[in-house]
């Protein structure tokens, strides 16, 4: 039953021009723009690296967040408000599959997006593909995607209409992209803003991904960063479990 639902949800994602362009194209556009505007080198983790080596993992974080948090929040709010979820709850389909299938679509797209960005980074900007740290990269991508999906479930309960979803999502993630080392190199961000960014999961996900590309030894797993991301995911899940709604607001 899960595979049946998953195939349908994946087809819907792929056929929806909005999700296709926003989720798949936008990270690539951002990578090209930032790699074109900013040149030379920067410093991360105490090492001097090319600016593109800095941007590929940062934009990868953005791609993961777009595929899960942004895409899923929009999907959940829209399908709740237009009555689709309510209708599904009237069938024998278990709630876990309704939600799980949509989340797994996000995770699968996030993994595909990360791979695509890695390949573009290698071919166009000569950014190295991790060898020994590949495990860390895979763990970071999957854990990040899962955690941001859970945060989407929680946030969706605070958004009352499909129209309000996009602004609410953007006001949440855009400022954080700027201060979390996704859009702007960390070395150029004031300490105060960096400290604010440390509270949220985006900077930690970007750092965890970046480490797997910069480091040449070890597993590349940044335990502290990944634990912060995981904590946000668990918190999101707990909030969602208490407040998740199937029926439209005001129903």
């Amino acid at each position, binding site marked *: 039953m899960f595979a049946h*639902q998953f195939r349908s949800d994946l087809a819907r994602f792929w056929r*929806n021009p909005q999700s296709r362009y926003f989720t798949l194209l936008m990270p690539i556009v951002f990578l090209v723009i930032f790699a074109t505007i900013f040149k030379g080198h920067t410093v991360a983790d105490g090492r001097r690296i090319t600016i593109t080596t800095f941007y590929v993992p940062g934009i990868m974080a953005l791609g993961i967040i777009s595929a899960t948090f942004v895409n899923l929040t929009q999907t959940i709010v829209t399908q709740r408000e237009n009555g*689709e979820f*309510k209708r599904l709850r*009237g*069938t*024998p389909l278990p709630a876990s599959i309704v939600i799980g299938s949509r989340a797994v679509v996000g995770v699968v797209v996030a993994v595909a997006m990360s791979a695509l960005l890695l390949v573009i980074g290698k071919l166009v900007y000569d950014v190295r593909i991790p060898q020994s740290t590949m495990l860390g990269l895979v763990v970071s991508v999957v854990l990040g995607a899962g955690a941001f999906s859970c945060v989407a479930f929680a946030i969706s309960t605070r958004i009352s209409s499909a129209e309000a979803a996009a602004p609410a999502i953007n006001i949440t993630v855009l400022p954080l992209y700027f201060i979390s080392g996704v859009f702007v190199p960390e070395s150029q961000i004031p300490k105060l803003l960096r400290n604010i960014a440390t509270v949220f999961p985006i900077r930690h996900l970007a750092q965890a991904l970046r480490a797997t590309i910069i480091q040449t030894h070890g597993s590349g797993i940044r335990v502290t960063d990944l634990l912060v991301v995981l904590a946000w995911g668990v918190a999101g899940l707990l909030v969602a479990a208490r407040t998740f709604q199937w029926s439209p607001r005001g129903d």
Partner: protein
Amino acid sequence: MSRAPDAQPAIAVSELRKSYGEHEVVRGIDLEIHPGEVFAFLGPNGAGKTTTVEILEGYRPRDSGEVRVLDRDPASADGQWRSRIGLVLQSCTMPAELTVRELVELYAGYYPHPRSAAETIDLVGLTDKRDARTSQLSGGQLRRLDVALALIGDPELVFLDEPTTGFDPSARHHAWEVIANLRELGKTIFLTTHYMDEAQTLADHVAVIVAGQIVAQGTPQTLGGRDRELSNISFTLPPGSALSELPGALASSARVGEDGRVHVSVNDPARSLHALAGWALDRGDELGDLTVGRPTLEDVYLRLTDGQVHQE
């Protein structure tokens, strides 16, 4: 419709109550609907129809009263119970990215013993549109697709909440055919509507809810004592005649309405008409606009709901 008198009802409700805050929207209603019956639940907007239906469907908790649907309490419904029930909600948007066939096949996968997807699409008259994305369907076609999704699990009981609201007359008649087909399949159907002709055409049994209470129940033919009411005869008086010249008792019971026509209620329509026709022929007159009618279901409904119909 014949059935064993001790047959288990498909739906049994007694003393059902539900409030939202201070406002009690369902105020102690009783219903009994038998297997294979088409039941129409009538009432103005805000009378408590949808709240009642959603309690029966397992969407809403009740405050008090007994509810059994297919011998289960819907408040503690599980997937097995849901697989025996089909729903058309008052409004639902279909996934725009999927075709009719994909969506029906998707829903078929939710049920243990689904009907054939192709047959079900045919039953609702969407075979020509089976490969169209749902975004290309008209409002009436979407509603019929909704009905197909309600039927795909081969349910015993189907809830249709205002299935034809907003339809043009031809779409409405098409939908009625679909519902009549369901009756042929032996389904129990719980229909809410505020169209009297819909109830008249489809239902075996109707109940009218007003302000959270059931004010009348019966067949469409007997609702509100409609079957015992008098026949109405009306016509225009021939030129040069007066009410007092009418034959027999008609002379005293007839009156002239605002429309200028004579109206009279009788309990012996054949005899009265005979006398009236003889009277006119003897005078050498015709009664060109003569009508004989009984109160329609709509007349009864309007009287029962006492103007509340137009509140919203």
